[in-house]
């Protein structure tokens, strides 16, 4: 990181996804100084990796990019990317976060984001930003709209051939750059650590049948659908064939006390419907089926979105489907109990099957020992009705998927709420909490 960044702030926001950025922007607009700590090389979180968003079907990047840009240009916001979070402790009334800045192996102050290093690099690595479906280089800019637009070198794959350093016009490549540990402090803390997908569910639930290339996760489908995705069109990963039939398995790990988690992941119904709609746009002849237990289209305009999808001919099958194998054409075999028709169990194959995997907390445990998690592992809200953003620690707030699965709309609203609670806390703190 740049050595001259400040280390003392009014508020520390942990997590640079849409929730963290929104909270940071609201606070910075109120005149508070804010640090945003992000584990990835870019801010933007899950949202910047999505294709389009429900129920408006507008482009995720077009909504996220302005917020990312606003945060990165705001004089009141300092970004710390590639930072692993150590302990957060309360010291002399301040919340102090120990950070480990992983080496970018590129000098942040010198890099101009020109990608010469990337073009020069001879090493190809599966690009996780594209669900591993295409390759990137060992030194690269994470993705086209990454912020900051700075290269990062992946030391696990770098062959130390020296080409990137040679072609870099500013001499920014630094193979020997060490990890740097440092501490930042704030008067308040917002935990916006988001979620991750339960990627080990398929193996647990389907066993050997889970190991097939055309059985993919919902985030992989997002990449396939994104205009700047791996193939720029929807092709199935196994053989590059255009799928004629695509299915979605809902509650893949959610509402499942045996193989997953007991709670509802809340967004999967809607994103599956959205993906189905986008698919029927790009593959008008394809059959699209959603296997579900309950369709939970509960938000504003969500039900109408669901009814539109039905009217478009997307098939909704009330059943939890089981993945049982792979057919000779590379399709995924499913079995389900067709209860609504009363016709009993059916076996069906789809060229491509998407699992709407459950959401898990982005952090395995809350980053501050005194902050409690609920039985579901997400950060516990101590006042879920009046102030859902309050945690068990004074001065520590939460928003978005850090406090339970949540869609983007609810996350952004909660981010505003958490920012407001933090600003009130800071205002009282300034007055010695007299008015509390």
């Amino acid at each position: 990181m740049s050595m001259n960044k400040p280390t003392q702030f009014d508020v520390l926001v942990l997590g640079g996804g849409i929730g963290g950025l929104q909270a940071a922007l609201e606070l910075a607009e109120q005149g508070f100084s804010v640090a945003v700590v992000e584990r990835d090389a870019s801010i933007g979180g899950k949202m910047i990796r999505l294709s389009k968003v429900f129920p408006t079907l507008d482009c995720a990047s077009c909504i996220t990019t302005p917020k990312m840009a606003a945060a990165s240009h705001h004089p009141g916001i300092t970004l710390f990317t590639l930072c692993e979070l150590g302990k957060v402790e309360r010291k002399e009334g301040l919340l102090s976060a120990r950070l480990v800045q992983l080496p970018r192996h590129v000098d942040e102050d010198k890099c101009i984001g020109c990608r010469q290093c990337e073009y020069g690099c001879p090493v190809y690595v599966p690009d996780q930003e594209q669900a591993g479906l295409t390759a990137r280089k060992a030194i690269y800019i994470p993705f086209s709209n990454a912020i900051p637009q700075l290269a990062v070198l992946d030391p696990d794959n770098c062959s130390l051939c020296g080409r990137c350093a040679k072609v870099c016009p500013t001499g920014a490549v630094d193979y020997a750059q060490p990890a740097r540990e440092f501490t930042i402090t704030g008067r308040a803390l917002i935990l916006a650590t988001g979620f991750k997908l339960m990627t080990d569910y398929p193996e647990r639930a389907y066993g050997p049948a889970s190991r097939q290339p055309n059985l993919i996760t919902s985030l992989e489908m997002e990449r396939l659908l994104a205009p700047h995705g791996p193939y720029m069109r929807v092709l199935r990963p196994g053989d590059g064939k255009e799928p004629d039939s695509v299915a979605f398995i809902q509650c893949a790990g959610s509402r499942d006390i045996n193989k997953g988690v007991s709670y509802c992941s809340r967004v999967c119904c809607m994103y599956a419907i959205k993906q189905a709609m986008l698919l029927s746009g790009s593959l008008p002849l394809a059959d699209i089926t959603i296997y579900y237990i309950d369709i939970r289209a509960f938000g504003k305009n969500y039900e109408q979105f669901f009814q539109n999808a039905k009217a478009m001919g997307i098939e909704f099958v009330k059943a939890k489907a089981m993945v049982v194998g792979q057919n000779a054409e590379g399709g995924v075999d499913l079995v389900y109990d067709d209860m609504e028709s009363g016709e009993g169990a059916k076996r069906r194959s789809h060229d491509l099957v998407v699992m709407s995997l459950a959401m898990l907390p982005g952090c395995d445990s809350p980053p501050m020992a005194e902050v409690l998690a609920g039985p579901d592992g997400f950060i516990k809200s101590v006042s879920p009705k009046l102030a859902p953003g309050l945690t068990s620690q004074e001065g520590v707030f939460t928003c978005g998927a850090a406090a339970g699965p949540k869609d983007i709309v609810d996350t952004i609203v909660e981010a505003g709420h958490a920012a407001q609670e933090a600003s009130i806390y800071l205002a009282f703190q300034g007055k010695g909490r007299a008015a509390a």
Partner: protein
Amino acid sequence: MAQTPFMEVNQAIAQGGGGDLNACVQCGLCSAVCPWREVEGEFLSRLMIRQGQLGLEGYESDEVLFGCTTCKKCVLNCPRGVDIIGVMRAMRSLSVEAGGVPETLKAVLGSAHANGNPWSEPREKRMEWARGLEVPAFGPDKEYLLFLCCTSCYDQRSQGIARSLVKLLNRAGVSYGVLGPEQNCCGESVRKIGDEALFQKLAGGNVKLFNAHDVRKIIVTSPHCLETFSAEYSELGGEYEVVHASQLLAGLYREGRLPLLGRTRGKVAYHDPCYLGRHGGVFEQPRQALAACGAQVLEMNRSREFSLCCGGGGGRLWMETPAEKRFSLLRVREAAEVGAEVLATACPYCVSLLEDSRKTAGLEDLKVMDICELLAQDLS
């Protein structure tokens, strides 16, 4: 004609051991994972539960009400953790109480009632399998009671398992003994068939007998005995440490007490019995035991908790299943497909059904063997 839900039936199922009935969310995953899907069977657990929830008729045919093999695959997959086997058992109970038992099972229950075994064999012949072998009687000086499944006692093919096990125990110097013909069938299948009263009688008799002999530890050849002794006998006052032969043998080998040569050649596929694997949670020890005798252990596509049921649980062992609808037929073919020369398993029911299907399939080059048999062959 509209039907009216009959909630008394729902309540009777719930009270008869199917307490999870109403917890079912009707997702149908149980129907989807059920082995009957492999052979287009009629039985649909989700539908049967639904009918049970509403107290409606429609599940009374033998192939539906007595379709469940209690393989537990659905239970392990059920998103609501419903004890589906308990619900099936309770629903059968209602029918059995009213005399609704499939013909083939009537004989089984009758024999179990009269002879203490389901095989219509005289009680006093229970120990005939041991003829010519040195089998100690159980007494206070013995660590383990060796309890043999009725099938191992009476069925000729299965007796080989018992005899092999005894050889192994003797060579390893295990302190064990057997009890006489007063032993009953463990009652596991009887209970799953739905004859709760008979189960109480059989199990009650065993508990009384075991407790009278101060039995603490039991070796079993059948995973079905394993399940019922360890999970169900405590209801009747029987608390035992139960070990399946394959577990014990793996342990003995590890301790260096089994003088195996490791000479077994050839490829051995291991079939996880439902009651050892999914019910008992025993997956590794049978494989360790197989590896100990030198076999090259192969995995079939569906193994461990994904294993395919042989079709013998829940009373199905005694029911007629047309050849093309037998899970065991699929299983032996699967073993042949992976190139196995031996299909090894660790349950008398599995051995019996797999052996039958091996013949049906005409797989001359495949042998079906119990782990005890493979290990006994490899003794020095």
